[in-house]
């Protein structure tokens, strides 16, 4: 396997890039459709490097001829699209991080899903917002009112939210818990599309057995 990869690395650069982009696109779609924060996709940095290499190639071909100029334009457009996905992916995550900053801050389990930089962002953000809210609203209030971390004030991701998902491999009969203690059995067959509670498919999503739509 290792040998194969080395052998192909020079000739198959293109396909490798495409698959990276597709993988990131999947992460991006899942991230946008899920109510929870998903683990960070480390491909971001690889893709950024590839983009840099690509823009150097474009720069080098710049004054070649008409064909190269046309090719460059197509490349440029494709790069813009990849950049858009990267940007949207990172911003979507930041949006959720800001929304659930307080919750993440008190749940170390969530830290594993964030990149180092996102952890820094989340911590700074929470401290900044708390400091501001305290100074502008509660500084003069009695001490027992000053707590900003009461359980009902912490915004949590709603894991009961319904999501659309496509099953990627046969998963057999699966028990799905309803809201009032009811449960029903669903047969998750490959390529079928379901609308289910996020909680029910959370573990499958983590294992890559379903994807969100």
């Amino acid at each position, binding site marked *: 396997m290792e040998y194969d990869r080395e052998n192909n690395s020079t000739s198959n650069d293109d396909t490798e890039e495409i698959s990276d982009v597709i993988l990131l696109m999947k992460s991006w779609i899942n991230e946008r459709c899920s109510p929870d924060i998903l683990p960070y996709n480390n491909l971001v940095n690889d893709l950024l490097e590839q983009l840099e290499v690509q823009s150097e190639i474009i720069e080098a071909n710049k004054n070649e001829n008409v064909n190269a100029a046309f090719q460059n334009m197509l490349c440029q457009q494709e790069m*813009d699209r990849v950049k858009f996905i990267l940007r949207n992916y990172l911003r979507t995550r930041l949006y959720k991080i800001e929304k659930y900053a307080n919750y993440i801050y008190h749940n170390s389990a969530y830290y594993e899903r964030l990149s180092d930089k996102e952890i820094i962002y989340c911590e700074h953000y929470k401290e900044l917002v708390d400091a501001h809210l305290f100074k502008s*609203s509660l500084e*003069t209030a009695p001490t027992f009112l000053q707590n900003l971390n009461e359980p009902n004030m912490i915004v949590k991701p709603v894991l009961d939210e319904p999501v659309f998902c496509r099953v990627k491999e046969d998963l057999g009969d699966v028990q799905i818990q309803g809201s009032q203690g009811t449960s029903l059995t669903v047969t998750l067959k490959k390529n079928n599309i379901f609308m289910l509670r996020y909680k029910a498919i959370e573990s499958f999503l983590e294992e890559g057995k379903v994807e969100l739509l």
Partner: protein
Amino acid sequence: MYADQAVKLVKEAKKTQDILPEYNTELVRDVQREIRTLHHNITVLLRQYDIRSSPQNHPGPFASIFIHHQSLRRNKRCLLAYHYHRLKKIEEFCWELGHVPQELLPNLSSQETDFSTEYQSIINDYTSNFTGIDLSSSLDPPKDPYIEIRVLKDCGEIYTENGLVTLSKNSQHYLRRTDVEHLINEGYLKHIQ
């Protein structure tokens, strides 16, 4: 009625969802004053009656304290909602333009001005890790790498991949979207569909 002022604050925030109105110092102070009065009333009642150990002997004062306490919590909630709502608006400006627009600066409280500066530095810390992409530019998917733009306000010369371009008022150009996007956001240029 208690917490009326606080509800006014929340209503104000709700009515002005798309704009950032002037910070309502007066009303915020009123609510904070009401919080202190309510708290004072509670302490007085607690001092007068031995409610903690035997609430059933003093149903009247007990109910009074309960109502006061609920109003306190409601006031707190409304105050936080008002401020948080404004923060979200400020954050939006910080991402879109890199700062709160000049004409809106007088509408911010001094704490909000501090917040916007610090928030901006958090954003900058984060985005400086991704030099290849501009995280703050539009979140709409790109259609064309080149777009037609009209110049609304003089903005001097800008450097593009094909050299310098002078953007003088009312002229029209066909340029790389990424080169001019920030100028569109700031209202110097207009994208012609």
